[in-house]
């Protein structure tokens, strides 16, 4: 369900937060969907359970997930209009970092990048 890379410079809880946010934003995870338990996810990926519960708690604080006593963590109903634009932009997070890094290495300008993004955007 999630792709976690423990050897990345991005901490595991950050990777999980980014992926859940994106999947919720894109509708891949619909409101009411139950997420795997902390234990299931930790054992499956052989990672520390605290890093998973840290991600879940932060996502709960953000309102992306909700917890009901004795039940699994579920995706909360999202009111996308109420999520500020800046916060939605932030959800692209490390993807932008990677893109900019690659563009710089190829000695492209921000304008080149913007043009390419616009072109791709209008295709879809």
């Amino acid at each position, binding site marked *: 369900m999630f792709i976690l890379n*423990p*050897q*990345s*410079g*991005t*901490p*595991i*809880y*950050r990777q999980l937060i980014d992926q859940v946010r994106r999947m919720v934003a894109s509708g891949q995870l619909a409101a009411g969907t139950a997420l795997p338990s*902390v*234990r299931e996810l*930790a*054992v499956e*990926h*052989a*990672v*520390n*359970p*605290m*890093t998973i519960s*840290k991600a879940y708690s932060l996502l709960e604080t953000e309102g992306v997930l909700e917890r009901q006593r004795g039940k699994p963590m579920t995706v909360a109903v999202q009111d996308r209009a109420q999520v500020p634009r800046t916060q939605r932009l932030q959800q692209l997070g490390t993807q932008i*970092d990677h893109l900019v*890094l690659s563009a*710089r*290495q190829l000695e492209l300008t921000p304008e080149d990048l913007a043009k390419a993004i616009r072109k791709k955007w209008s295709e879809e």
Partner: protein
Amino acid sequence: MNDPYVSVKGLAKSFGEKRVLAGIDATVRAGDVVGLLGLNGAGKTTLLEILLGLSPPSAGSALLFGNPAVAATATAKARIGFVPQNDELIGLFTGNQYLDLIATFYPDWDARFAEKLVAEWGIEARKIILGYSVGQRQKLSIIAALAHKPDLLVLDEPVASLDPLARRQFLQQIVEAATDERRAVVFSSHIVSDVERLANVIWVLKQGQLLWQGDLDTLKESVIRVHTRADAAPTVRARLRRVVAERSVDLSGHKLVALRAPDEDWSDLEQQLGAGAQIERLGLEDIFVELHS
């Protein structure tokens, strides 16, 4: 907050003239999984032995469940599981006989759990231990340390002889143990990727001193490698110096490594360093190497 399971203050250890550990302050609390990293000879085994009360400190204090570790009571010892670097198995016993013997020491021994692991890990428990491979011996030692569900599990290089599949099974067992918030794990390993999966707290021991200790996520968020082109290097270095107060390590001309102080805000570092800099976030292995360069 509850008392820590392990608490050491100003700990030092010397063997004759040779100083092995110095100035160590550290705690282990319920729920912690501590990964102990260090080069060979850094003092990892000595530190673990002192935490467990197997060896007295030369100076400072080492408390185990609130009492001096060397004077640990039988009750305190029953709350510990230890996998030493060199196992203490009895060669002429079969695996089953050995586990039966260990079981008699612990009131909370879970025989079904031990049997389950013996089967899952493919241990030939009816054969005598002398005929075991190094990997089999290591697995048996781990089961002997796990089956009484200790509050504090200490493992010294537990996976050195295990193949990747056996290591993964072992890691999953430790994850299972760590889901119980009353339990704590301290383990040393040269296999940094295992430490990176399992630990939420990292101790880096260098020449007998704790070079870094704290949360793994914080560590990853506190170390960056900055790459610059040769012509931009002086500017980037100067800007980095302004943002990063201390312990910024200068390496070669266009590779800079910075370690963040607790109060520094790095949220807009990219902007502050300007276009000449590329920031790379590091995995634990790279961080470990940089801390030793």
